[in-house]
């Protein structure tokens, strides 16, 4: 029984982590159709922002929840202004440009911090269930992930900002003809996506550590999750993370983490073969 509870909690944590690290990409790709190849580096920057500010003496929670999203949001604002804004509507060009940004960020951070893994111990200790234990911090991260998606749904469904964002996403020209400046909406969306990625990177840094090249470890999984989810940003990311995360966690338990990753990729290939439009192309079509 204890083992079953621990396995269940671990599956939930894996799903939540996958959804969390995919959320920023889902916002930018889902709303702007921009394939942000620098998404992994936004996660990495979030980790470094939290780590550096904490090592400088700032409270860990402030470093994670305030500094990291602010810093990466600011970096996102600069990249949007200098690079992305000139390339809206040109998917391949934005992909290449953000790939260049990705390489530049990896190089810059390697020069500053060196090519080593840094980290901070996860706070809060562990929760013991019989003979087994799971980190309380991991459960907190899962809770934050759930809250983040709930907040995202509330903003999109219930606020004027969400209404404007959804309309601009569906028909940019008509939104402009009715009085909304699409450039401002797109800039705000990109910055929001970057800030969410920064928060996600900071949250997982105490669990996974941080290194200049760690973005590469996340980018494939996050892209697969967002693409497998389909058009609906929140429902798609959540459903794909639920399916792929569960497969990943189950196979990791049964066979080890390497085959867990292989199972995740195989499941994604099968999913996209059966549902080329992603999960929300068939199910939850009217969801956000």
């Amino acid at each position, binding site marked *: 029984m204890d083992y079953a509870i621990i396995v269940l909690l671990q599956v939930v944590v894996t799903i939540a982590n996958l959804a969390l690290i995919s959320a920023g990409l889902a916002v930018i790709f889902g709303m702007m159709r921009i394939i942000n190849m620098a998404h992994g580096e936004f996660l990495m920057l979030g980790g470094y922002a939290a780590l550096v500010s904490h090592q400088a003496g700032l409270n860990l929670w402030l470093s994670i929840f305030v500094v990291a999203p602010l810093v990466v949001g600011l970096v996102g604002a600069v990249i949007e202004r200098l690079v992305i804004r000139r390339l809206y509507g040109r998917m391949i060009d934005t992909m290449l440009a953000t790939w260049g940004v990705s390489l530049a960020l990896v190089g810059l951070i390697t020069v500053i911090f060196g090519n080593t893994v840094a980290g901070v111990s996860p706070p809060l200790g562990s929760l013991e269930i019989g003979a087994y234990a799971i980190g309380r911090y991991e459960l907190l991260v899962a809770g934050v992930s759930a809250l983040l998606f709930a907040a995202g749904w509330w903003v999109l469904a219930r606020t*004027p900002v969400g*209404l*404007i964002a*959804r*309309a601009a996403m*569906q*028909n940019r*020209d*008509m*939104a*402009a*003809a*009715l*009085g*909304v*400046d*699409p450039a401002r909406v797109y800039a705000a969306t990109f910055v929001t996506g970057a800030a969410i990625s920064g928060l996600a990177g900071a949250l997982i840094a105490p669990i996974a550590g941080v290194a200049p090249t760690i973005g590469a470890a996340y980018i494939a999984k996050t892209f697969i999750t967002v693409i497998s989810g389909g058009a609906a940003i929140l429902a798609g990311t959540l459903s794909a993370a639920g399916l792929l995360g569960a497969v990943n966690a189950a196979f990791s338990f049964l066979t080890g983490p390497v085959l867990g990753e292989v199972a995740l990729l195989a499941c994604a290939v099968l999913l996209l073969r059966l549902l080329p439009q992603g999960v929300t192309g068939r199910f939850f079509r*009217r969801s956000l």
Partner: protein
Amino acid sequence: MSILAVSNLAAGYGAIGVLRDVGFDIAQGEILGILGHNGMGKSTLLKALSGAILPSAGAILFAGADIAQEPPHRRARRGLGYVPQGRQIFPGLTVRENMAFAARASGAPLVIVDEMIARFPRLQPIVDRAGGVLSGGEQQILALARCLCAKPSLILLDEPTEGIQPSIRDEIVETLLTLRRELGLSILLVEQNLKFMTDLADRVLHMEKGRLAFAAPPEAAA
């Protein structure tokens, strides 16, 4: 007094010129129709006026300000409404959300959404339905109601009767005439349906090969 004065307007798509030396004006509360065969530049004229394409020459004075080089959202906020051909409803937003968006985008109070739903009774039973699943006629009424939610002083209407049934056509005529009478609304109407044009327009201009060829009263155009 003119609410819109266009002079020497030229516009097109890239190197392809469509409009040449177009000039006309619309008085406050006037309904001006533009007739012409397909491909003569009628929709391009409305796109140039709404800001969807920028003119290569000429002036567009709207309420006294030259808006020729302004982006579409600035023109909309000045009170220039645009109902494009094909309606361009936001398919994933409900009827009410489509209208609320227009009110939010223009800074109009949200109460206008309920006012417009009351003006267009056909929208009442479908306010919570997604725009993408509506019939062509319902979408046309929604497109017009959405535009009116932004409280425009001039509406650019592009082929509003395309693909809709006569009863809806009559409803649109009735509502536009009422709005003109009550609010002094001005309308620039591009249309190929002569009955609709004669029911609505005070004056008709004929467009040929990107130029305005001649003006006539609606009865003469018919």
